[in-house]
């Protein structure tokens, strides 16, 4: 009874997203926006430790799958402070869903630093409460519709990851979360780490960020089941 009252007293804190934008401070680390910089562009691109910035004819473009939020390109590049970052995987396009109602998600840690996993964990706290959108975490591959992968895929996790994917029934979707799962991040490429999940699995949805904030991961899940269109961050110089 004490706990019931304590819960009621706390009130409702849940975000209005996806029906309305979330504007609270500190919900996103932001991402750089590509722009025309002229002569400075090549120097700036050279400063990026993960080669996320590319220079062509004085214009800097950003490969969001590689950005690890080192902030070295600030303030030369403006940073966007949104979070709807999830794009579709190579050759996937918009995903219209076989998944109509509740969706069960299997989260696999393939060498994550703990941050992406912690942000996924936040989706279960009252601020994000993914259950209200029909998303549930499951530990069983046989019950899972969506495989959510974090981490650059270390050698020791390659086989478990593949086994888990194979054990999931079809239709299934793969959501790769975080710069490491998309490109290997600061760990790629080495004798023990690959360049992310797409070298092993068909990735349907890519969520950039190091780590992506909970709202970006939520957006990725909505994209995976066809309830939101994918973002097209990486295409143009204006972002």
């Amino acid at each position, binding site marked *: 009874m004490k706990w019931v009252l304590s819960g009621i007293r706390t009130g409702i804190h849940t975000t209005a997203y996806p029906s309305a934008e979330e504007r609270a401070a500190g919900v996103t680390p932001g991402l750089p926006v590509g722009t025309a910089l002229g002569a400075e562009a090549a120097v700036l691109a050279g400063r990026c430790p993960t080669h996320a910035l590319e220079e062509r004819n004085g214009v800097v473009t950003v490969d969001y799958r590689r950005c690890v*939020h080192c902030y070295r390109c600030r303030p030369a590049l403006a940073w966007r402070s949104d979070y709807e970052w999830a794009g579709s995987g190579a050759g996937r396009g918009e995903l219209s869903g076989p998944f109509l109602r509740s969706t069960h998600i299997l989260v696999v840690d393939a060498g994550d630093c703990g941050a992406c996993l912690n942000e996924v964990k936040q989706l279960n706290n009252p601020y994000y409460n993914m259950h209200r959108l029909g998303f549930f975490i499951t530990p069983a591959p046989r019950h899972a519709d969506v495989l959510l992968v974090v981490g650059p895929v270390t050698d020791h996790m390659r086989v478990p990851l593949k086994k888990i994917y194979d054990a999931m029934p079809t239709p299934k979707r793969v959501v790769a979360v975080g710069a490491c799962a998309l490109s290997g991040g600061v760990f790629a490429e080495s004798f023990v780490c690959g360049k992310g999940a797409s070298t092993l699995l068909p990735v349907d949805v890519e969520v950039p960020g190091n780590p992506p904030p909970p709202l970006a991961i939520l957006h990725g899940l909505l994209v995976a089941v066809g309830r939101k269109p994918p973002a097209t961050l990486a295409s143009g110089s204006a972002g």
Partner: protein
Amino acid sequence: MNGAQLKEHIERTWPGQASCRLDAEARVNEVTCEPGALAALCGDLFHERGLAFGGLVVEEGREDWQLRYVFYGARDSGWVHVRVTAPLAQSVFPSIAAQAKVFAADWHEREAEDLFGVHFEGHPRLGDFVLHDDVWQEDVQPMRRGFDAATAMNNRLPDADWRPRRVVHESGAFMMPVGPKFSGVTESVHFQLETVGEDVIRSWTRLFYKWRAVEKLAEGKPLEDALLLAERFAATTAFAHGLAFCQAIESIAGASVPARAQTLRVFLAELERLRQHAGAIQEICESTALVVATSQAGLLEEELLRVSGALAGHRYLFGLLAPGGLAADLPGDACRKALAQAAGAVARLDELEGELAISSSFLDRIEEVGVIFPRTAVAYSLVGPVARASNLARDLRRMQPYSRYDAFAFDVPVEEEGDGYARLRVLFAEARQSLRIMQQAAADLEAGEVRAAVTPRPGAALGWAEAPRGATLHWVRLDDAGRVARYRIVTPSFTNWHSFHLAAEKFAFQDFPIILSTFDLSAAENDR
């Protein structure tokens, strides 16, 4: 015993076999020791002088091996680095874990054997540690010089015949394998729990599924790129690891960090501790399936993540540190706002603690489970809240103060029972102390620069910090070009995980997730 007395004691006891060089200012005794005296000397420091074993640093020189056993004690005894060398061809050293019963060195020796191919005489169980035997060939020694770390080796297939080692062979005994993928949102770790019925008789953890070879990747990298790795290998405690790395660089370069940057570093490190402790408390509530308390703690963790994000730009404080200070200044107003929010969070943590303390169904599950006895905490040189819940008051902020911790008043909370509930109470008490330090830091912010110039020069030094999970040591050696030549990271999860099996044994299966959560271990931090 202070540093000078230690020096005299060592030189008197092992004349001709050990010589000390005392750096009084840095509080470091560097002991050069013959391999023959190593076990006895380390045993003396550990058992008789009561020093904690910090870690083992193996370095491969051009012609010889250099092994550095790091011990630390209270403030006046300082650090003791016991150094032995041997030609590369002679890669056998005495095992101090086996020969001198310094059990805390056990995993360090196993790791060194696996990655460097150095052998430790007398160690009963070498191999199959970092490099899993079912996946890696026997002759790979990835930390050796000349090993090609850039090329992928994705051509090994796991050995289909590999089977876990079983120890319990009673009739009716069975083993429950758990992981690497288990439960909801968990890190990849494998546990083997052996039982004849209800209770776990033997538990064994297989780690390093997430080994990213961060120490190897850092080699040859310029400082700012190595710092990216330091922040990102275990990002829930990114700031503490980044701080330890920067302090190592600053001590090599002889740079002094401006006062404002020092104060801000303390402020941010305590904000990180507060946030991480709220997360750990949330996990403990979740493991006992206490839904409302889980939500309450979850709210606080997310709020503190937002506070960090609003203050520093990044929710896990990436990109803020730089060798010599901070990459950017933080305005005093923003700090005070963050402080007010942190104070609100701590007040609600206090409320939560009060509610938990009178929830009998919760206490039934967490009291007297997962007990770590004080003698175990000493034998394994445990660190952080786990050690402090077992009556071992070790805290680097107090023992070997760094940054500006000297200038601020705080307590080191200690409990005696060593059970799950004691560890939870330590987390709550430390959250209050973190706020107390943040208040003093915010009140003491003087205007000024936040970054001093750092010119890297060849040399080596140890940087350390009391991370939220306990002591972390970062040994950095820079080469002539100012690039990283060797980076060794000892993390609190690595240290504490060594003793975890003892807490899990003799308890029932259903206690296992609770015991695990009260340890607040991070596989990312352990595996590196």
